[in-house]
């Protein structure tokens, strides 16, 4: 017989550790495209949804957390604490018409805790990546006033993390509403190195944006049942806004001495209106999700770019299969969940006539841990972003995601009488 005693203090230590670690959420981006805008916008979704290609705006949180829609938390299994954390590895190759480069990076990806206050009110907080930057770009420039060429090397790093707090309420049998308040933090760093020539000195300019901005988004889910299936619809909305940051510019001479620096508050970093819609169908042996996300980037300008952005469209489709009924006596694979996902995005980046598109395919597994409630989610996503034509770059990547979905039960001391 299992007797519930008290929540282990280690659980709290773990939480503290998780959030301390969360402040230093790693950046997995290695893409010259991340020089534009606030960096490469990171996909949302924890283990389960990531395995479905990131689809699930209409899906409820169950024994796992779904952060694609803040309204989803209302669907959390009753009176649970759920901890989600994930790791991501990325194997990539960057190809241009002239050269290519490949490598691997890996980092802690996200941390979150979900909990239910009452049967109709639930919430979650955590740290997730919002955007990420990683690039090194050489650009040939010319000295004004004299014919002389020099090279600037731009090296970008950092990213924006989102410390969020969401709450969701179930209103009646069909409708859930949710809202998230986030604090955006982290730093976006660009080093610009002027390569010395006879005329141009070796100079390093470091531009850093220390993000400190609030961000709000909302979600709605509506569900209804038929005899065989549950249907759900989801809608999310985030209002476009200018993000506040402390911008600092420092100029270092060739011996690394700080010659000049300036810093001031700014809000040039803008994010667009984001609208997401989703459809979910759930039956005994499968869950299906289809999402469409629109980001209204046109009209937003950043100083670094020559051209403006265009609106982005993203279609995501995912399916989770549970072909066998779960039983303790089953062969292990019969207790697994199998997930597939597809993703197509025409991004906000357009250079000349070439829109940067991202296509990916995902295969994922959900493995129940000893207690039957906690899960280990594994997924592999293979994708391509960009094009080699027009002197642009194509990025081929394989993402490895490992997600842990730990239920409260996992931390309960068992005493066998």
């Amino acid at each position, binding site marked *: 017989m299992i007797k519930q005693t008290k929540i282990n203090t280690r659980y709290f230590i773990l939480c503290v550790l998780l959030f301390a670690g969360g402040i230093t959420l790693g950046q997995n981006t290695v893409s010259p495209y991340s020089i534009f805008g606030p960096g490469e916008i990171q996909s949302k979704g924890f283990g389960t949804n990531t395995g479905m290609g990131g689809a699930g705006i209409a899906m409820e949180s169950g024994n796992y957390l779904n952060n694609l829609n803040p309204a989803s938390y209302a669907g959390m299994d009753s009176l649970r604490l759920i901890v989600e954390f994930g790791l991501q590895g990325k194997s990539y190759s960057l190809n241009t018409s002239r050269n290519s480069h490949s490598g691997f990076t890996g980092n*802690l990806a996200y941390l979150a805790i979900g909990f239910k206050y009452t049967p109709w009110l639930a919430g979650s907080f955590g740290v997730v990546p919002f955007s990420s930057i990683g690039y090194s770009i050489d650009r040939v420039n010319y000295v004004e006033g004299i014919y002389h060429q020099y090279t600037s090397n731009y090296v970008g790093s950092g990213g924006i993390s989102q410390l969020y707090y969401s709450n969701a309420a179930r209103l009646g049998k069909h409708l859930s509403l949710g809202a998230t308040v986030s604090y955006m933090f982290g730093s976006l760093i660009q080093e610009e190195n002027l390569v010395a020539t006879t005329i141009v000195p070796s100079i390093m300019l470091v531009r850093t944006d220390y993000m400190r901005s609030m961000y709000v988004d909302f979600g709605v889910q509506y569900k209804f049942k038929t005899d065989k299936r549950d249907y759900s619809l989801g809608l999310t909305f985030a209002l476009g806004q200018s993000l506040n940051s402390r911008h600092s510019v420092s100029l270092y001479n060739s011996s690394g001495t700080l010659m000049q620096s300036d810093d001031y508050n700014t809000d040039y970093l803008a994010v667009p209106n984001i609208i997401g819609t989703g459809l979910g169908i759930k039956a005994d042996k499968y869950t299906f999700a289809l999402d469409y996300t629109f980001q209204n980037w046109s009209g937003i300008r950043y100083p670094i770019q*020559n051209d403006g952005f265009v609106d982005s469209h993203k279609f995501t489709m995912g399916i989770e299969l549970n072909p066998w009924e779960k039983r303790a006596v089953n062969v292990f694979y019969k207790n697994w969940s199998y997930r597939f996902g597809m993703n197509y995005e025409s991004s906000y980046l357009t250079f000349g006539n070439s829109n940067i598109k991202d296509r990916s395919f995902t295969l994922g597994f959900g493995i129940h841990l000893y207690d039957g409630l906690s899960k280990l989610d594994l997924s592999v996503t293979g994708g391509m972003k960009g094009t080699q034509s027009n002197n642009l770059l194509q990025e081929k990547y394989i993402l490895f995601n490992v997600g842990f979905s730990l239920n409260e039960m996992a931390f309960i001391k068992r005493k066998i009488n």
Partner: protein
Amino acid sequence: MNSKTILGLLGLLMLMSCEEDHLTISVGDNFIKSETTVALVDSMTVNMSSFKIDSIATSSCGYLLAGKYSDPFFGEVRCTGYCQLDLPSYTSIDDDEVLDSICIELPYSGTSYGDTLTLQTIKIHRVLEDIEATDIDASYIYNTSSFKYDTQALGEKSWNPRPNQNDKLEVRLSDELGADFMNMLKDNNDGIDITSDFVDYFKGVAVVSGSENTALLSFVADTSLKIVLYTHLIEEEKIEKSYIFPYASSLEQFNNISSDVSGFSIEALSTQRENISSGAMADMAYLQAGTAIVTRLDFPSLSRIFEVENKNYLYKAELVLRPITEIPRPVPLPESLTLYTTDKYNNFVSQITDTNGDAVYATFYHDEFFNEDTYYVFDITNYLYSELSGNYVDPNNGLLVMFGSSEFYGTVNRVVFDARSGSSYRPYLNLYYIFYN
């Protein structure tokens, strides 16, 4: 898997955060708008003017100048060199020694001005006044100073000088002086002390140009400049002997330097306080050593630097001066030029230095083949930084162009700077900026 294991695993994962060096790639760089601009701003006005310093100290300059030459810009330049000589250190002379001759030896420095292909005449005169400092401190003798000398020359020589081939000029002096000097040495030998009186007795020589000279010659003023007394003694066989009266002291060696500038632009230059702009002097600025004509530079629009609104870093400032084209050049262009800060009275305040505190000299770009693209570049970054500090530019401050080291006092080197307004002639103040956001 228990909670301890999970905890341990997490700790490990948190440490595991790897990242590689990024690929440097130039993809899409044409879509990036640089927020940094490197720019050369050369529109600053540089005003040039010239003035003449009333007098400069030419004593102790190390060179004895004699002769005259006609310069197309600086008129007829004439020099008379003065120096004192000493008794020989070795004076054991025999009473029976017989005078052969007495000569003065002037070692060529290798520098000459004007036309050395025609016959030149140098006269050696005996100075009749004490050569001594005339200023309050009694430490310098000036280019304007002169001392009375005997109208009758001790000796003279007319010859075709080859200052680069021969190492010295030898002029025979009068036997009368030779006999005097020999007798004096004999008296000295007999116990009459004449050491302290020698300079009183023989106050020095003036090396004077002949009236038809076309060249000005430079001699080294050091111990290789001397009077040599040649004698012989007949005992069993003839013994030839010589006694050296060496160059005495740099303090009493100087050059009187004058020029006849009537009809030339520089005729307008009279005092140090009054500089005359290049506009009033045929769009040229003048610098001449010896006669002490100096070029001054002013930057009347310098305060505009403060009006630059963008964030900027002024990382280099250079001054470019072009000498006017002369074919052929009667005097070689100076290899070494430097700058001094100055005030509204054209005083030499201090030589400009770089950040290490070392004096700044021009880099000389000499177009020896076409004689066209020849210019001097001064790195005046450090000077400009100090001038701009305090966010105020004193409009009375300027720069003086000077010869490097002692050239200004011991030569008649000169250069004429182009001050025409055309873009390929005018002086430039090149400001190198990094503008950034």
